């Protein structure tokens, strides 16, 4: 956690992939990708993570830069495939493979913008459900909601993210070049 002291109150901001939820990670990524000034981006991120807006009016510029520096260096990006996750009494499994259907749905999610949580809902499957049941839109939406409510950590999303960006995106680029 990154601790920021403001007005004698300590604010703890999640700053590692084990502390951030997938939803927070996606929100931060989305803010970073916005076409705005760096200062504005980081102000938005810190507020989103829990720092009061009023704090930003009082933090000195040097301190602000230090906070950002500390924040950005605290990330350890080691990814590991987690084959099973338990959410709400159900086991969801993913062995790391990607089916054509997974790919089609992930591609559609990528186009819509925030794809990580949805991609996880697509990739992690309940073994007691049929192929058709698993890919029902309502089921995937429901699973996203569950993953969000149960605050699935961003660390879990790193492996799928690597697979999508390294394996899939590059292969698509090759196939369409």
């Amino acid at each position, binding site marked *: 956690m990154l601790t920021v002291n403001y007005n004698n109150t300590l604010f703890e901001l999640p700053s590692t992939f084990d502390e951030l939820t997938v939803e927070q990670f996606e929100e931060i990524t989305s803010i970073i990708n916005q076409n705005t000034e760096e200062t504005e981006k980081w102000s938005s991120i810190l507020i989103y993570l829990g720092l009061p807006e009023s704090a930003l009016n009082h933090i000195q510029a040097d301190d602000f830069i230090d906070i950002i520096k500390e924040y950005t260096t605290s990330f350890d990006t080691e990814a590991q495939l987690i084959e099973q996750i338990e959410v709400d009494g159900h086991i969801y499994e993913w062995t790391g493979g990607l089916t*054509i259907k997974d790919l089609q749905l992930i591609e559609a999610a990528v186009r819509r913008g925030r794809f990580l949580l949805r991609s996880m809902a697509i990739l992690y499957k309940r073994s007691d459900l049929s192929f058709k049941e698993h890919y029902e839109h309502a089921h995937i939406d429901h699973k996203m909601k569950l993953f969000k409510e149960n605050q699935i950590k961003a660390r879990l999303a790193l492996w799928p993210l690597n697979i999508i960006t390294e394996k899939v995106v590059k292969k698509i680029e090759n*196939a369409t070049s």
Partner: protein
Amino acid sequence: MLHLKERTGWSDVLVEEFQELYELEREQPIDYLTERLSILLDIDVDDEEFQQQDVDFLFDLINKYKWLDSAPPEQPKKTIQLNGLSLKLKPLNEITVGEFIDLNHLLEEPIRNVHEIAAILYKQYRANEWGHEIEEPYTYNLKERSEAFLELPITEIYGLIYQFSNWKEWIHQQYTHIFIDPEDLEEDFERDNLSEAEQAEIERAIEVERREAQWSWEFLLLNITQDRFEQIDTVLNMTIIFFFNFYSVKQYRDKKQAKV
């Protein structure tokens, strides 16, 4: 077990399949590439067996059929066998006014219409009593004939698009002057104060106007027949080259008389 059709190149792809491939949305690459394979290999993209395959299977297929990214050959076949008919590619210089008008319109969407373009440009021929080769009249059922072309390999007729487009461009260049009185397009404003870019923009607009005026067929037909509708059929059966030459002469004569 998935049963996939084997295709080795464009000669294994029918005209209607080629058109289907061309019409595919390309916005989402995976959807596009998958749909492309489904048309080519007869795969139902909603089939669970296919959808459950690993993506590597898909990418292997995409790489195997990379030739789909290239265009079919640009040379159309000179003769074609179609449902028992023996057809020959008509020499472009013999295209009639009626055919030219139809082709011109069809060329607006050349791939979607390539079978209709072919149905106009491939004809049956036979010898007359003098032993001269004569062409079937342009009265056959174009829809029926063009539908039969959908079942041919695309390699047989794809080149028509290039051949006819190039020839049409040549015609444009040769006969630009006959359809337009340049004075009609003279600008009624001062150009000296305009920047080079603005002048170029005006030139482009004039060129578009000029082209539109050139290909206003109804106007041309009425003009050349002097509003005698019963003569229009005769004009439609003239070769386009004869028509353009004849019209050039008429235009020249009209201008001369106007001066007198």
